[in-house]
């Protein structure tokens, strides 16, 4: 238990030399410094003539464009369209891939048989299948969401199968000596024991959902951030294009933050200080 006390010594409030505000500033510089320098270079490079301002407008101009599109509601519209598609597709993939993965993982012989096929599917780049999806589902919402589902499905499915297959057999035997029924064994042992591995797949899927979506929106869409990027580029509205790119980054960060937070909450036992 001493480790808990030791780690509490390192809390920012207890820092011997810096005040609370000082620590906050230091953390801000440490964590935001690189980003700040990056944007500063972006701002200066076109102004100093190091880059062509027509292709790389100063960062402040992109902010101004962002403010304009934010005010007239366009940015929100595109952001919302993209978010709904990626989160929707991601959610559908999650609720289908996890149960299927759990079922496959429970029957090792079956898992061994289908695994090569699943690996092949996982390694078939979703973007390569985009023309197929467009042929089948047309250029409406369906094809875009279907592509996101496809891209998210495999990492979650394969990680779920792996998670179930790699549950420590000693824990299963230990649970059996306590008389757990097969259903209890599944709910109380196999599910929580495989949860961390499943979550790795979910995090990968979260990142992949954005990639797949942007590509889909660039090919055939009338809204969404991918559409904003490609449309702006066609019309040589370079600040709008960069704004779309930055918005994609923000969306990716947002999704990854939400997943990280929920993962931390679900596996609180893992982040406990250990000896």
């Amino acid at each position, binding site marked *: 238990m001493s480790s808990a006390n030791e780690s509490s010594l390192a809390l920012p409030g207890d820092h011997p030399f810096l005040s609370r505000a000082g620590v906050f500033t230091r953390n801000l510089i440490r964590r935001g410094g690189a980003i700040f320098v990056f944007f500063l270079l972006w701002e200066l490079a076109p102004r100093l003539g190091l880059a062509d301002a027509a292709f790389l407008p100063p960062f402040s101009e992109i902010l101004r464009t962002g403010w304009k599109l934010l005010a007239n509601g366009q940015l929100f519209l595109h952001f919302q369209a993209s978010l709904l598609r990626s989160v929707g597709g991601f959610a559908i993939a999650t609720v289908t891939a996890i149960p299927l993965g759990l079922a496959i993982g429970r029957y090792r012989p079956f898992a061994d048989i289908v695994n090569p096929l699943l690996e092949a599917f996982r390694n078939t780049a979703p973007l390569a299948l985009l023309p197929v999806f467009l042929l089948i589902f047309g250029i409406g919402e369906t094809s875009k969401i279907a592509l996101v589902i496809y891209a998210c499905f495999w990492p979650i499915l394969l990680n779920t199968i792996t998670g179930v297959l790699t549950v420590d057999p000693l*824990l299963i*035997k230990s649970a059996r*000596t306590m008389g*757990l029924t097969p259903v209890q064994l599944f709910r109380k042992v196999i599910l*929580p*024991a495989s949860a961390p591995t499943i979550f790795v797949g979910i995090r990968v899927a979260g990142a992949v959902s954005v990639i797949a979506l942007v590509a889909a929106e660039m090919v055939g869409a009338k809204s969404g951030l991918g559409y904003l990027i490609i449309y702006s580029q066609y019309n040589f509205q370079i600040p709008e294009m960069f704004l779309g790119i930055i918005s994609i980054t923000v969306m990716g960060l947002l999704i990854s933050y939400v997943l990280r937070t929920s993962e931390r909450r679900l596996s609180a036992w893992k982040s406990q200080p250990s000896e």
Partner: protein
Amino acid sequence: MPQAGTLDIQHLHKYYTVNGASLNVLENIDLSIQPGEFMAIVGASGCGKSTLLRLIIGLDNEYDGDIFLDGRRIEDTGLDRGIVFQEHRLFPWLTVRGNIETGLLNNTRFSKEEKEASVRAHIELVGLQGFESAYPQQLSGGMSQRVAIARALVNRPEILLLDEPFGALDAFTRHFLQDELLRISSEEGITMVLVTHDIEEAIYLADRVVVMQARPGRIRRVVNIDLPRPRPRNSNAFAHYKDDLLQDFSVGGHPEEILAGNLEQPA
């Protein structure tokens, strides 16, 4: 108080098939363990002592002969038996209390209140008050083993099986937990079967020590330990038992036990 169980092992044989060849792991084991008795089983690696324990707990029901607990033949795991393994095998995602409660999931004998009382009583029994909400990762090896003991006892089983429970602990913790085990044994009054490598541990704890030998795994002899408790480890009588039992393991006497390959599978 739980009812202490009587364990009757009759003409027990156990074979494994390794690469198509049949391997005799346990041969003609006959053993009767009385209610409340503390029985220790010692023997070199590969003598089948852990296999024997796995059959008693019911994780493996493919054996010839009979194992009876209070007259019922053992064919599956059951709440009338509890086991503590060398590794604590706690569920890392559950707290101390959650782990102990898992032992009660299928207990239909206890009311809700009785279950709560039993969890509380066993946390106290192993001296873990104040650590109910801790996770296994936060506990030392000795504390984890205490949780495992509480979890195995929370159903108030008739018999507690211990498979080298202190083998992975340091000497200080081991001695301390041995005393705890004696106290628990006298407080709970249930039958105990301890498998161990450690002859001193067997003499210190057990009423009777079963010496097993390998190839095939069989009982070599059973030694009564007629010493009052507590048993000072440095007494002459203790040393006498130790010398006696160590002879069964000496290389000159019975090399096969020492040289026997480890054919046991972990339970």
